[in-house]
């Protein structure tokens, strides 16, 4: 295994080196980096030209410049990268450090969202092959494949962002809107849950009635401007999660699992008040610490109180604790929402990755960035969701034809166990490879997305770099995307070898 990894690592490094040389040569030949100065009428023109030649090293032949760049990159081994300077003499490594944060946030979030939703949709369409749901999802995936990103972005801005901003100023539903949402939700739910005709009708009626009652109630509460969950809401929802986790893992009568899970809820309820002040304006560090505690407590409780069922008790407790931590966080985000709305009355602005000089508490700036992240993430996720769902569907159908699935059904396992435990686990193996490709591809796709949404991320770095025939920023962009592509590919290969016993290395 180690030899396999080392050999892959060596090959990947060689490929990266070759690709960097190729891109550098192309960049050097992409135009005249002094064009704008040659055409300018500034009095100090010659001085400016001499300065830029110095910054870009234009007095040296290109292979010497490439060698200097490569030597700077080699210093990354000692965590002291020198990626050269752009044409105005600014250190590219500091530019990259500023730009990479927002881009990675976008790409990671979009990948996770697309993978989770895409796999879920893929499984659902594979289970209900050739149903109405399958055909509509197939059509939608083709639509998303064919969608020009920059065009769809303008539509999202116009209808989602501006529409929402107008609506949130005075959030109200007309009876017609409520009726349409209720009917639509009911229709979607009956398509998703399927079943016999009576079951479909019941699903439709129940979900439509639910929406028809909840929307006016939320409006009456003015929930959309003053959302609230409160201590009561957190505890009631957590109890629901705790009981269902116990029921699915061991059954409600099993005290060995029930007691540690209930103890976890109690601990969470105490933690809610104990951390209340801390959570009003936390930092990422305290949040990470609190999350670690939320993981540790159920593990300890499960191990101590779980007896011979300590594995299941720990699992159920962990699910409960994580749900409770999430709900508590949501509660604090809800508390910050009115303040955020007064700071930023139109929550989703269509330009930039965050509002400049925003100030505000931790949660308020969190909400600000979240609102700015919403549209680009949605867009990127939508497009790669299409390919995830297609691949998962194909992979699930492929696995579903195999003998061991028939064996699992024949020995009387439930359909849920067959699909989720036996089929999905094996169907996911090829998805790992696709995820690796997709992540690197998305960073490339972020170039367009960032251009449409006016983000100052890595895509912007690349775009201006190419526009100004300035190799250093373009090469920095390539260094990140290329390394990510190679690394994720290798991870996928290793994962493949571990997950699939048929592959021996």
């Amino acid at each position, binding site marked *: 295994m180690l030899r396999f990894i080392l050999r892959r690592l060596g090959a990947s490094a*060689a*490929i*990266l080196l*070759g*690709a960097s040389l*190729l*891109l550098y040569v*192309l*960049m050097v*030949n*992409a*135009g005249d980096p002094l064009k704008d100065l040659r055409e300018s009428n500034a009095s100090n023109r010659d001085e400016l030209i001499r300065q830029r030649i110095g910054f870009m090293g234009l007095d040296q032949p290109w292979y010497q410049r490439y060698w200097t760049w490569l030597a700077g990159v080699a210093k990354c081994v000692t965590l002291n990268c020198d990626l050269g300077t752009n044409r105005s003499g600014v250190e590219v490594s500091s530019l990259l450090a500023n730009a990479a944060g927002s881009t990675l946030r976008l790409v990671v979030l979009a990948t996770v969202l697309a993978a989770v939703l895409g796999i879920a949709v893929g499984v659902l369409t594979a289970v209900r092959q*050739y149903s109405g749901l399958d055909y509509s999802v197939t059509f939608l995936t*083709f*639509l998303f*494949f*064919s*969608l*020009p*990103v*920059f*065009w769809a972005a*303008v539509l999202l801005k*116009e209808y989602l962002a501006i529409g929402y901003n107008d609506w949130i100023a005075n959030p109200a539903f007309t009876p017609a809107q409520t009726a349409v949402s209720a009917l639509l939700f009911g229709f979607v739910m009956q398509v998703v849950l399927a079943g016999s005709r009576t079951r479909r009708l019941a699903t439709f009626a129940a979900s439509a009635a639910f929406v028809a009652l909840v929307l006016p109630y939320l409006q009456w509460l003015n929930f959309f401007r003053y959302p609230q969950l409160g201590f009561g809401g957190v505890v009631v929802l957590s109890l629901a999660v705790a009981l269902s986790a116990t029921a699915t893992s061991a059954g409600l009568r099993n005290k060995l699992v029930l007691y540690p899970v209930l103890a976890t809820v109690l601990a969470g309820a105490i933690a809610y008040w104990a951390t209340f002040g801390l959570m009003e304006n936390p930092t990422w560090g305290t949040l990470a610490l609190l999350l670690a505690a939320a993981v540790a407590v159920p593990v300890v409780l499960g191990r101590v109180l779980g007896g011979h069922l300590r594995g299941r008790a720990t699992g159920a407790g962990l699910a409960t604790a994580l749900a409770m931590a999430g709900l508590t966080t949501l509660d604090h985000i809800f508390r910050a929402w009115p303040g955020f709305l007064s700071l930023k009355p139109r929550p989703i602005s269509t330009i930039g990755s965050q509002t400049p000089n925003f100030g505000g508490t931790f949660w308020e700036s969190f909400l600000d960035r979240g609102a700015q992240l919403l549209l680009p993430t949605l867009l990127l996720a939508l497009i790669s969701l299409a*390919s995830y769902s*297609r*691949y998962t569907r*194909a992979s699930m159908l*492929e696995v579903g*034809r195999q003998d061991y699935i028939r064996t699992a059904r024949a020995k009387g396992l439930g359909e849920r166990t067959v699909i989720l435990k036996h089929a999905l686990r094996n169907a996911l193996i090829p998805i790992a490879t696709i995820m690796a490709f997709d992540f*690197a*591809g998305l*960073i*490339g*796709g972020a*170039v*367009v997305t960032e*251009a*449409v949404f006016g983000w100052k991320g890595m895509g912007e770095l*690349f*775009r201006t770099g*190419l*526009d100004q025939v300035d190799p250093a920023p*373009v090469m920095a*962009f*390539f260094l990140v*995307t*290329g390394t990510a*592509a*190679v690394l994720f590919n290798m991870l996928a290969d290793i994962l493949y070898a571990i997950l699939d016993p048929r592959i021996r290395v």
Partner: protein
Amino acid sequence: MPAGGEAAAAASLAEAEDAALRLRGDTATSQGRLVARRFLAHKAAMASVAVFAAIAVLAFTSIGFAGIPGWWDKSYTLAATVVDGGRPTLSLVPGWLGGEGLRWGEHPFGQDSTGKDYFALVMRGTQQSITIALVVGTVATVIGSVVGAVAGYFRGWVDSVLMRITDLVIVIPLLVLAAVLGKIAGGSGNVLVLALVLGLVTWTGLARLVRGEVLSLREREFVSAAEAMGARASRIIFRHLLPNTVGVIAVNATFAVAGAILLETSLSYLGFGVRAPDSSLGLLISQYQSAFTTRPWLFWWPGMTILAVALSVNFIGDGLRDAFDPRQSRAARRKGRTRP
């Protein structure tokens, strides 16, 4: 999306369906005819062929192409006075439905801010997109299949070298490589140069797929037979191996064309593809995206055209895949259903 290569599992279904087709009356049917018949029976694909053909004919005949004049009398380069705020004169709602009647009018798609006829501009952009996409698709398909077949047939160091070159191109994000090349090629002002250059970077996926197919095909008896009769390598590759991978190649060529349309429009949007004063659908959207609230037609026409072209080409590819891989076709679907 990959064109599944699990031919073995499909064999029984394919045989069953081919037998059914044969029973329909006529005698011996060639493989090509079977594929063509399956494709013609695919409704979505046939509708897409019609849509794509209609758009292409409209784009190429209306404003003329390569010096041949078309039937539309306005030019995409001439500025004019803006009439009625540049609003489109096209009306599709008949009078008895409360509309303005079926009317083509002076400027069916409206006018841009300098009074240029927007119909002519969009048609010119569609021409450019279709031309570029077809050239990119052809170039990428030729390079990809030859590289893949050569690598798969010779194996050994030829394979290693070709596949490392493929990896080299794959590791640079496609949009990045295309943008850099587009910047270099865009200076010439000729879209054919841009298209050739884009074709040089989009062949990698096909090369890998064809290589995989050829690796298994070259072990078959007919290749040994050809070798035993003294056929040269070039003859084996072009007469024996490549024709047997035509399914993979045809399907991927179609998806390459659809991808190329989106790639070209994205590049033109970013400013590294087709440049003004020429017109391209991506360029039009980038020029008029801020006009969305005031003059939405400047934004809708090019976007809907891209969507229509890309969607129809993708559906044609889907139909081709079903035709070449009968396991997924409609007839097999009905028979293939085992569970209620």
